[in-house]
């Protein structure tokens, strides 16, 4: 993850070359940037502005509308705790509180060691396994406040999700 290091723009040059003349390309481009850097670094936004001929305002305006995009660096693993209806009814709040306590961060924040960012989402589409969370792209279901600490511990130890 590029956090303090300077941002390498060369990869983006190629991507932007491909999308330069396509319609409606801003969101796919931002998605690629988000996936590549984990957030939308300022210099990259500048580059997008130049290549797609859009103002910075327009880009940031669009980016901040969507929950997926972030203007600040994020942790190595993203934990998305579902707070959708089915999970809510099955006690998601307590699971979230427990995770928050275990990681010592509140929603939207990143742990000090930069390992985890904790997010809330509304429904991961695995409602029958409620309460549910997604770590990176993996879904973990049937969570309980008593056991969720172990799941986090496993991920921390394995370095990758299950």
């Amino acid at each position: 993850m590029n956090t303090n290091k300077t941002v390498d723009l060369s990869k983006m040059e190629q991507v932007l070359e491909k999308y330069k003349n396509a319609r409606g390309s801003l969101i796919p481009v931002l998605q690629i940037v988000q996936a590549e850097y984990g957030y939308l670094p300022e210099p990259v936004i500048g580059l997008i502005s130049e290549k797609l001929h859009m103002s910075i305002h327009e880009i940031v305006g669009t980016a901040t509308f969507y929950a997926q995009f972030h203007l600040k660096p994020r942790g190595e693993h993203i934990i998305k705790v579902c707070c959708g209806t089915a999970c809510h009814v099955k006690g998601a709040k307590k699971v979230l509180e427990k995770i928050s306590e275990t990681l010592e961060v509140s929603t939207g924040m990143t742990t000090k060691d930069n390992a985890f960012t904790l997010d809330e989402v509304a429904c991961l589409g695995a409602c029958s396994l409620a309460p549910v969370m997604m770590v990176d792209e993996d879904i973990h279901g049937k969570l309980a406040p008593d056991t969720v600490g172990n799941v986090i511990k496993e991920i921390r130890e394995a370095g990758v999700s299950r």
Partner: protein
Amino acid sequence: MTNETMHQQQKPNPQTPKIIIGMASCGLGAGARSVLKSVVHELEKQKLEADILSTGCIGMCAHEVLVDVIFPGRTRVTYGNVKTTMVPQILEEHIGKGEAVKKFGIAQMYLDDKTVIPYEGLPFFDEMEMNKGQKKYILRNCGYIDPDSIDEYIARGGYAALEKVLKAMTPKAVIDEISKSGLRGRGGGGFPTGEKWASCAKYAADEKFVLCNADEGDPGAFMDRSLLEGDPHAVLEGMIIAGYAIHATSGYIYVRAEYPLAVKRLKHTIEEAKKRGFLGQNILKSGYSLEIYIKEGAGAFVCGESTALQNSIEGKRGMPRTRPPQSVEAGLWDKPTCLNNVETFANVPFIINKGADWYFKIGTEHSKGTKIFSLTGKIKNAGLVEVPMGTTIRQIVFDMGGGIPKKRKFKAVQIGGPSGGSLPESLLDSPIDYESLVGAGAMMGSGSFVVVDDTTCMVEMARFFMNFCANESCGKCPPCRIGTTLMLDILTRITLGQGEEKDMEVLEQMSDEIKVMSLCGLGQSAPNPVKSTLRYFRDEYVAHIRDKTCPTATCVALHKYEVTPEKCTKCQACIRNCPVKAISGSTTEAAVINKEKCIKCNLCYEKCNFLAIK
């Protein structure tokens, strides 16, 4: 199929046993990957041979991980709640000897080949509590075929409808057929699909678009995800047929960001369909060409609304706009555009194959066909059910759903998510169709069906949905932006014990104002959960406001930290967990909380399994 190309997928040998693992999101979430690993490992260890295949969601999500085994000549057996520890025995007996392990098996089913021999003492899939009464027309392939294999889809009649349409039907004939079937949109509003197509077809333009709404923003709904992950070709086929009917030049599938597996499947599906000539230039040599692209959403509920969705595809903030013009006239990039939901498209090939007259016979007078619901919350058999329109709520909750777990009582079902309403016990026998639901104060919505029991506080539930709507309001129109926030404030106050007598009236009045003044469906329907809970559960509001109590003891701020002696089972769980030793009692005496010592940490309430502390 005419242009069948040889393809990397080797044809499975019918003489080799098959192990089919449910690898949709629900299966993966329950641990399908470790089961797969253990299957691979055990096969090798026991020196057995079998083909390992994957499939989508068969709807019995409460039993995931699901593993099916087909032994040559025998029925397909489904094992439920499979743990890695069960794998060695299943492989040894079933793959090795052809004997099903009955204690782990939950059902068996015939294959398309009906001559296979069943196992004794195992129930048939269709006779299971959850599946009786269902009509799996649209879900017929989900959890049955390998969604990544176009051959398996074709083998079950896939792309026959497209072939028929392109070779033997004019676009107008297709629209007439869909109109005649009575199909209505499954994305929420229930707009007649044929009518929408017809109004889009009449506009001529150099470019026209067909869009698939796979945003599935309703928290608690996962039918569209299951279809996309379990039978993606059916959705694509329906979309191509729609494209042909309205003369679309290209199409987009707008999928929500939280569904990475569905996106992956769809990409593969589109590629495969193109390779076989079902999509792209000159489809099946008919002269009709269509390109379909995937657009990933970026996390905004309002982007499920049609004009917001189009703005999002254009790369802008996903905000709705005023209508007219309607999208069918000037939608995406100001070109005529037709948007339908995933499930709506999945119905299309089915209707073409079966014929509109046949389809028209299923359902009620004004709601035809089946509807898929995601059954979740406090329900025994959580999962997917597909039922004919007109099925009653009771049938779904108690027959297919198996009722409420832990011997608790049914209280309400929320149908239609944040735009819908909570329906109480007295409405259990009302039929599910578009009109009846609206009349009862809910709406079909996309198909979420969240059951709550007598431990759920309905005021808190209404607050939950209002919080969702206030968060997701795009902010463009003030009635929605400010109205939802003000209503949320009132609801929050009530749950904190600071409600005032006039609050209920204010909420009712604001509900009506927001409904008529908001720009799009989000605001227009945001008050529905409040209205329906005020209508059916008014006494709970009164209890919070007047008596400052929460009847279900859910609202922490209203807890009095008193033990109801009649409910106390003297288990002493509260006594053991109290950090300040404020609780006394014994095996013979009910617990008593010393209010002077109590620090209101709420632990005793959480630890009590009998709701004896209020």
